[in-house]
Structures are given as C-alpha cells and as structure tokens.
C-alpha cells in the first residue's frame, strides 16, 4: 500500500513537468498562430487583435495557468486550421489508433512468448538459432518499410488485402479487419523482436538458477519445469518490458498510419505539425503522453502485485 501511494505521488511531478513541456514546446515552434489563423495577407492590426484574443500578449506564466486550467476541464482549445474543438478531433482519431495498437500488441505478445520460450528452452539448437535471427531481424527492420513491402507483396502483387485506407469497425466490421491486417502485422512483428530477445534472456537466466536445477533433480519433466517454474518468473520483467513498449508502439504508429493512410492519432500529430496547427499538436501529444504515463503506472502496480519484493523494498 505504501508503495502504491509513493508511486502515485511520484506521478504528480511527472504530470506537471509534462504539462510544462507540452505547453512550452508548442510555444517554441517558429511562426505566429495569429498569422496561421488569419493568413499572411491579414493587416497587422487584425493579427494584433487576434493575438490579444488568444491571450498571446499575456505573460507566459499567465498563459500557462489559463491553458492548464482549460486543459484540466477538458477544453483543449480549437484547431487553428478549421476551428474545430481539438478534443473532438482527437476523439475521432482514437478508435483506429486504439485498434492498431491493441492488435499490434497482441500479435507481438503472441509471437514473442512463443518464440522466446522455444528459443530459450532449446538453447543452442537450430530452433534457438532461428528464433534469435528472427528477433534480431525484428529489431533491425524499419517497420514502416516492412509495411511498404507488405503493400507491394500482399496488396499490389497478390491482391489479398487493401493497400491502404480505413473503414470504421461499426460501419463494416469485415472491411475494417481486412484493412487492419497488414498494418497490425507490420507493427506487431517489429515490436515482437525486442520482446522476444527480452524474454529469451530472462528465461535463460531463470533456467540457469538453483531452483530450476532442484526441480530437475526432483525428476520433474522438462516441460513442467519450464512452464510452471521458469516461465512464471521470467514473465515478471517481461510484463514490465511489454508495458514500457507501449510508448514505442504509439510512436511507431505515427509512421504506420502514414504508410497505410489510416486517420489515427499519430497521423493527426504529423498532419498538424506540417500544417502548423499548434493547438492540435499540443492537444494530441498531451493525450499521448498521458496515455503513456497511465500505462506505465498500471504496469508498475501490476508489477508490485506480481512481485511482492517490490512492495517490501520500497
């Protein structure tokens, strides 16, 4: 319990620093929001009036405080490009990103747990060798390029899947899943490389420990020892690693969504950066950062539940 309280308290300064970072990052982007809204041709007086209206002439601390106040109440401002509320823009973009992230995460878990266990429990054999090569390939391949090659082979060449685009799930579930197959696998494969390596090495460490030798010497079967003893312990660091990968996964989706032209949150960040839509950039990176913080918090809590040592040590 004390650990949980401490962990929650640690989140507060992080949230504050993140909010300052998001706020000041956007204020550092070159260019004047008033010009973005009104255009280059607008007279200086109009732009000045717009700056006044946006509060850009206030001291920076006042600007931050009023931005933070609005943000906490769920008001992320309006898009500088089309005037739509940023929050609703973001909410529209969440379903495809969530679906992609979840799918890629499941694929990466499935692959890495299978390959990792096979690889470590048959150390030094051709199975291990193949697993190692697979994992190394996974971490070395640029996944957006993998996505492009998937398009070339499976969409253009074989015509099995659409090359790009997105259909909302509730509009046409079949078309939606079809469109998601290639991006989900491309991203999932990339993520699984790192997790496979992680699981293999932590499982090898467990398999070399005394309790495993004791279990073997009791005459327990190999399968039983690996699954019931070693894998259980090896999964503890693996859970953390896979949770921490969520940040990388969300970042990676920026390019996946670009390659497959999926209107997700990552694509929104890129589009709004390129169109200098500061408020939208600000809102979307804030939502992404909050998601990462929340996931990390959940992972730590889960870790404490799985591994009692964490609770005692802290």
């Amino acid at each position, binding site marked *: 319990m004390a650990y949980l309280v401490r962990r929650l308290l*640690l989140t507060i*300064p*992080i949230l504050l*620093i*993140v909010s300052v*970072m998001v706020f000041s*990052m956007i204020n*550092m*982007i*070159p260019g004047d929001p008033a010009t973005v809204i009104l255009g280059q041709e607008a007279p200086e007086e109009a732009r000045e009036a717009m700056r006044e209206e946006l509060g850009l002439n206030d001291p920076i601390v006042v600007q931050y405080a009023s931005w933070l106040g609005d943000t906490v109440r769920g008001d992320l401002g309006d898009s500088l490009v089309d005037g739509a509320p940023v929050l609703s823009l973001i909410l529209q973009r969440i379903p495809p990103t969530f679906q992609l992230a979840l799918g890629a995460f499941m694929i990466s878990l499935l692959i890495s747990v299978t390959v990792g266990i096979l690889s470590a429990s048959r*150390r*030094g054999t051709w199975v291990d060798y193949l697993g*190692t090569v697979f994992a*190394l*390939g996974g*971490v*070395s*391949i*640029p996944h*957006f*390029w993998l996505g*492009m*090659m998937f*398009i*070339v082979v499976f969409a*253009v060449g074989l015509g099995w899947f659409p*090359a790009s685009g997105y259909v909302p799930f509730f509009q046409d579930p079949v078309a939606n899943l079809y469109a998601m197959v290639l991006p989900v696998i491309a991203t999932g494969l990339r993520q699984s490389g790192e997790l496979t390596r992680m699981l293999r*090495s932590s499982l090898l460490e467990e398999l070399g420990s005394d309790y495993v030798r004791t279990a073997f010497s009791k005459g327990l079967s190999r399968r039983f020892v690996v699954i019931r003893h070693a894998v259980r312990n090896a999964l503890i660091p693996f859970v953390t690693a896979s949770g921490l990968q969520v*940040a*990388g*996964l*969300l*970042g*990676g989706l*920026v*390019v996946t969504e*670009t*390659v497959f032209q999926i209107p997700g949150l*990552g694509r929104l*960040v*890129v589009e709004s*950066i*390129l169109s200098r839509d500061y408020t939208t*950039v600000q809102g979307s*990176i804030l939502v*992404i*950062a*909050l998601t*990462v*913080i929340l996931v*990390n918090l959940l992972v730590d809590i889960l870790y404490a539940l799985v591994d009692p040592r964490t609770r005692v040590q802290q």
Partner: protein
Amino acid sequence: MSKPQSSGTVKRAPEEAPEARVGSPGRFATLWRRFSRNRLAVIGLGIVTTMILTAIFAPLLAPYDPYGQNYAVTLQSPNGTYLLGTDSLGGDILSRVIHGSRISLQASLTSVGIAIGLGVPLGLISGYFRGFLDEVLIMRLIDSIQAFPFLILALVIAAILGGGLTFAMIAIGIGFTPAFVRITRGQVLTVRNLEYVQAARSVGVGHLPIMLRHVLPNSLPPLLVQTTLALGYAIIAEATLSFLGLGASPGVPSWGSMLYQAQSYLTSAWWMAFFPGMAIFFAVLGFNLLGDGIREALDPKMQS
C-alpha cells in the same frame, strides 16, 4: 544484465578478476578473443566496416551521380545498366543508396554523440550526488521526457527547430538522451558506495576527479554496448524523420528520403522502396550484431 565491474584503480590478481574491463591493453586482447569467437558478432563487425568503407569511398563506388536526373530513363526496373533500377526522376538507385550511407552514418554518429554528451554527465551527476538533484530534478525530467514516445518527441523537436537533416539529428540526440542518463546513473549507483570510492573520498579527492577517474570508467562497458545499439536505432530514426518529411529534403540521397519518394510509386516501382529499405535493414542489423557481440564479450556469463 551486466554485473558491476571492478574499478581501474584496484589491482587484483588475474584469477580474481574474471570480468574484462575496457581500457587496459591486456584486457583488450582478451575481449577481442572472446568477441572474435562469436560468429554473429564478427558478421556484425563486417557489415559495419563495409558500411563505413562505402561511406568513405562513395564517390569512387557509385557508378552515377547520386543527384543526377535523366528523364529518358525514369522508373526503370533493375537492369544491366542500372543495377538497382532508377527512380521517378531517372536517378540511379544504386548510386543513391551508396551515397545514402554517408548521410545515415553522419546522422547516426552526430545524434548519438549529442545523446552521450548530454546523457553521460547528467547520469554521473545524478547518480553521484543523489538527493534532491537526482530524485526531484534530473530523474523526474527524464521520466517526463520518456512519457513522450521517442518518435513523437523527435518529430516535435524537429518541428520546433525547423526541420532539415541537422535539426533532425539534434532531435534524435535529445530523444536518445534519457537512455544514456539511466545507464550511466545505474552504473554510478552500483559503485558510489564501494570501498575504493569511499577511500578516495576519505583522502580528500575532489568530486570531479572521483567521478571522472573512479566512477566513470566503471560505466564504460554498458555505455559502449548502448552506444553501438543506439547507432543502429539512430539510422532508423533518421530514415523515419526523413520519410515523414522532417529530415533530409527529398532531393538528397538519404535512405529515408528515398523511401519518402518511393511511397507514391509502390504500385509501379517496388525497387524504389526495396533497396533503400534493405540498406537500412543491413546497417541496423550490423550495429545490433556488433552491440550484442560486445555485450557478450564484456560479460562472459552471457555467452552460450
């Protein structure tokens, strides 16, 4: 994963010092012997060496001008004249891929250099002094930076700075910094209370000399591994930023900007995307194999 290493100051009998250190010449031979026994590591070293040599001798190796455009030969598939085909502007893909190694290598060295320059001192200070500076300032800042996915952080920083290859390198460097802070700090924490550091402190050695001469050398092995792996990731990161239009400009023969260009021709000219991507893959694979090899050579327990 790697255990605390012994320091450079304490002399130990050879049989008591099973772990190799970086720096002393005898150790280097041992490390090299362990490294060269690892076939994958040697392959990695071979790939990285080839990449470096390609970058150095690019003008001699490339059959055509990498910036050359010839509208008579646009979008040719690989053939006898253009081994890897031509792009939409009639540029020779092979020459552009060869020259691309220069940009990738330069981007990767610069950004990792920035990450080391920022991350190692911060990690040293944080781990050595502990307390408020460590717990409240530096580590919370690092936690906060890590709340942003690396790529999104790099994108926003590149956008703040104005786009272009130079700024992309700085953005990637800043994005990599937290990893270097954490590794250095972790290593410092394992040695700061060891006897030889306390001994140095008790005879009045100042903080800076202790950090530089006694604490830092201990952090070098994991840092070396991290640096090698980061050099590989930086290549992907640069390619990604260029692919999104915030790195090298489209005309420049960088692997990422070639992929950016190839995106519009996926249905008609697969070779435009295939070869630059393969170049990235092999370069990154090389650094990963090399990094793993160094890690295993430094930590014999990891060896199979």
